[in-house]
């Protein structure tokens, strides 16, 4: 039986939103590492963002649901730890969407470049951790609004 191309499967997966930051898709995050066919089974390889991230099991479920909706029946999800996920894999589009959503995108310098609300570069750290393992809490010293920063790892 002919099956959809891996390009087609990628396209479907690119539309699946992240369960905790729904402006980002799984493709924006860069956590889908591979799509392949092994016989009539579609094998999707996923890497976790943080080892204890509670979203991981939801993400796996969402991937399976999305592919079943497209008519695939034999799906296998593989977990890949090595190489470990890094925010370098986040797409440029994903970074823009994050900032528009009010979350400062990750920067190699280790802190946000500017306030996602007013664009001021005058920001200070409130806490190294935020509402999810992937974020920290910062504040703008100009508009005084707090905001979340997507940690660079």
């Amino acid at each position: 039986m002919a099956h959809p191309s891996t390009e087609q499967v990628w396209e479907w997966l690119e539309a699946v939103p992240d369960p905790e930051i729904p402006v980002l898709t799984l493709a924006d995050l860069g956590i889908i590492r591979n799509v392949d066919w092994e016989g009539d089974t579609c094998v999707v390889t996923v890497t976790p963002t943080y080892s204890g991230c509670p979203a991981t099991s939801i993400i796996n479920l969402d991937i399976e649901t999305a592919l079943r909706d497209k008519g695939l029946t034999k799906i296998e999800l593989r977990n890949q730890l090595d190489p470990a996920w890094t925010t370098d894999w986040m797409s440029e589009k994903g970074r823009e969407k994050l900032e528009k959503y009010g979350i400062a995108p990750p920067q190699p310098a280790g802190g946000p470049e500017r306030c996602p609300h007013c664009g001021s570069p005058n920001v200070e750290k409130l806490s190294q951790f935020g509402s999810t393992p992937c974020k920290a809490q910062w504040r703008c010293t100009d508009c005084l609004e707090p905001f979340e920063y997507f940690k660079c790892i």
Partner: protein
Amino acid sequence: MADVDNKALFEFLVRMGDNTLILGHRVSEWCGHSPILEEDIALANTALDLLGQTKMWLDYAGKVQGEGKSADDLAFLRDAWDLRNVLLVELPNGDFGQTLMRQFLFDAYHSIILGHLLKSSDDEVRAIAQKASKEVAYHLERSADTVVGLGDGTPESHRRMQAALDYLWPYVGEMFETDDIDRAMASAGVAPEPSGLRADYDALVGRVLADATLTIPEGKFAHKGGRNGYMHTEHLGHLLCEMQWLQRAYPGCEW
């Protein structure tokens, strides 16, 4: 991969996994009780990372053991005498300062050993270390900063941090004990001998504690018996009572 005795490898893996399991549970006890919201969130996130790492270590341990056990089975269905965590991580939280001092003393060791495991001859150990070391670098940055902030803080916070260090320091030595299992891991290239990590540890911890204006207690006495399962402290049983309650009351329960 080099030829490794599976029994020794299993022991090594549960030592790694039990450290993160027990410390993760201890830290999670702060959830909803921290002095301020930011600290509460930070501790909960640290606990979450540690539990995630536990799952990786114990899943692999279960695979190596070959009895079909999952990480959950190993975490919830073993009793105190089968756990292999160091005594340091099972000690009660005490006050916030003691919790952060314990975290720092463990994070420093954890970051050093994970750094060596990045070069492990075992592919799976290497992969877990890659994932965990990024998270632990972050934990260490935070706990070290907090130890300095509180140690070099008010007279009251300084006094509490020195008391925490005096209480916890005799539990540091156990992390660097080297036994036959460690030697087997070292000769197979899986993991370093713990005793070889001590110099790096002393340099790192010495620097931070000096910044914190705290004095490392004299004396070489070390409490031992956790990582070889000889004798845990009385605190572990109480911790397990709470952590394993559900599986003991409703065996096999899932949701």
